[in-house]
Structures are given as structure tokens and as C-alpha cells.
């Protein structure tokens, strides 16, 4: 019995600490530099949005991509703030909508949206990226974020 207990405890600690460490790595909120320089698509609104959200202390990481009509922003929230995630989300969404009246604003705290935006941000850096691809990518991300259980 005791040995069984010990094995369970040890394996639990491994799992917990093994997984617990990765959250500290994204202290630098913007691991991709704020880009406004892509020749094809102007990413200035995204850069502005990042700047704005960055002021909030609750946020640990930001991704944002836009095209001429839409801007999609996804954030990672400090874990201790996740209890008030809903009101936080509302507050920032409103803030963004006020700042970009001409654009459709999509704001998300979802990990999946964050990951997809991260991918898209990297792709934009590449030279051969086209506006079509951007539109398509954004459309898909928005569709994903609208899905509900």
C-alpha cells in the first residue's frame, strides 16, 4: 500500500512540475517584434492594438493581425486573473472597438486563437505572403472563434 502511494505521489509531482514551468517563459509579452513594415499589408493597426493592450498588467502575451477590414487580437491572461476573465474580455473588447471604429474587431482570450494568430504572424513575415492568404487565414480564425459547444 505504501509503495503504491509513493509511486502515485512521485509521478504526480513530476507531472505537475514538468508542466508548471512553461508558463514562466513568455514573460516578454511580444515575442514577435511589432511589425508595421510588411510591404504588402499594413499591420500598423495591429501594432497599435498591441501597444494598447500591453498597458494592462493582467495580460502576459498578445498576438494581433489585421487586414483592411478586420483586426483579430488574442491575449494570454495571467492565471491569477482568470477568475474575472469574462469582465476582462468585455473591457478590452470595448476598448479595442473604441480605438478602431473603422475595423471589425475580434478579441479572444482563447488559447487556440492565440496559437493560430501566432502562426499567421510568422507567415506574414515571409516575403511571398499575399493579401489573399491573409484574408483567408483571418476568416478561418474568426470562424473558429465563433464556434460554440
Amino acid at each position, binding site marked *: 500500500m505504501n509503495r503504491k502511494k509513493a509511486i502515485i505521489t512521485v509521478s504526480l509531482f513530476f507531472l505537475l512540475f514538468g508542466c508548471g514551468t512553461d508558463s514562466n517563459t513568455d514573460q516578454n509579452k511580444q515575442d514577435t517584434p511589432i511589425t508595421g513594415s510588411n510591404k504588402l499589408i499594413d499591420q500598423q493597426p495591429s501594432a497599435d492594438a498591441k501597444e494598447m493592450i500591453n498597458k494592462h498588467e493582467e495580460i502576459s502575451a498578445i498576438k494581433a493581425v489585421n487586414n483592411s477590414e478586420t483586426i483579430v487580437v488574442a491575449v494570454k491572461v495571467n492565471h491569477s486573473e482568470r477568475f474575472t476573465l469574462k469582465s476582462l474580455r468585455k473591457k478590452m473588447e470595448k476598448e479595442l472597438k473604441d480605438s478602431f471604429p473603422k475595423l471589425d474587431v475580434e478579441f479572444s482570450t482563447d*488559447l*487556440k486563437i492565440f496559437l493560430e494568430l501566432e502562426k499567421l504572424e510568422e507567415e506574414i513575415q515571409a516575403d511571398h505572403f499575399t493579401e489573399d492568404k491573409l484574408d483567408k487565414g483571418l476568416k478561418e480564425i474568426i470562424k473558429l472563434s465563433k464556434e460554440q459547444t
Partner: protein
Amino acid sequence: MTDKKKKKLPPDALKYQAFQQQREVKRPLLKNCLKAFLVGGFICLIGQLISTFYIYYFNFTEQTAGNPTTATLIFLTMLLTGFGVYDRIGQFAGAGSAVPVTGFGNAVISAAIEHKTEGFILGVGGNIFKIAGPVIVYGVFSAFIVALIKTIILEWGGF
């Protein structure tokens, strides 16, 4: 002998019950709670791992990953139940393995396997919710009441 009247007199029965209680082996509450915490937490941790896996490698968001996670956990439960492992985990963990959705799955699957001998329609079909039935019945009913009250408040409460 007073035995004849004994069973009709509650004081005697009460006296015996107190007498018996002193000798009854107590349930080890603290130990059981600790085991329930560890195993229950572990099952939820596995759930989180599965859910994160679906978010990273498939097209699921935090919202939509819930369903495939539940299905995966119940699939695993089917294997553990079928190979006769889950009842042993249950004896060790108590609520730790009964309260997570895997416990619900185990209640359904174990009843299905058990009543196979009475045929698939009346045996499996008729008994599959033998233990889990109340959970569904009162889950749905209480959700109905809660949603009703909430809607009434929202509509007429002036919020």
C-alpha cells in the same frame, strides 16, 4: 428474559445501536479524502492534458475541446471498466474516481456489461442507466428550473 419485548422497544434498539457503534470500524475520512483528492485531481489533470492536446494539434478551441475530451475520457473508462480495473481504482479512490465524468461513464458502462446476460434490449438497454439515471434526470430537471428562474429574472427583473 426480556428478549421478547426487545425488538418492539425503541430504547433497547437505540441502546444496541450505540453499543454497536462503539465497535464499528470507522471510515478513514482523512485518508479517504486525501486519496479522493489525489486520484480525482489526477483524472482532471489528464483531462486538461487531453484538452490541451486537442487545442494544439486539432481545430478545437478551449470552448469546443470540452466535448472530445469528455468522449476520450469515457473511451478510456470503457477500457478500464471492461478489463476490470476501474472497480479497483474505485475502491481505492472513492469519490476521486466516482465524481469525475469517468465515474459517470463507469456507472453506465458497468451496467451495460453486467446486464448483457439479460439480452441487449431489456438487459443492456433497460439497465444502462440503472445508477447514472438519477444524474441525468435531476441534472436536466434542475437545469430547467434554474434556466426558468434566471430567464424570468432577466426578462421581468429589469436587468
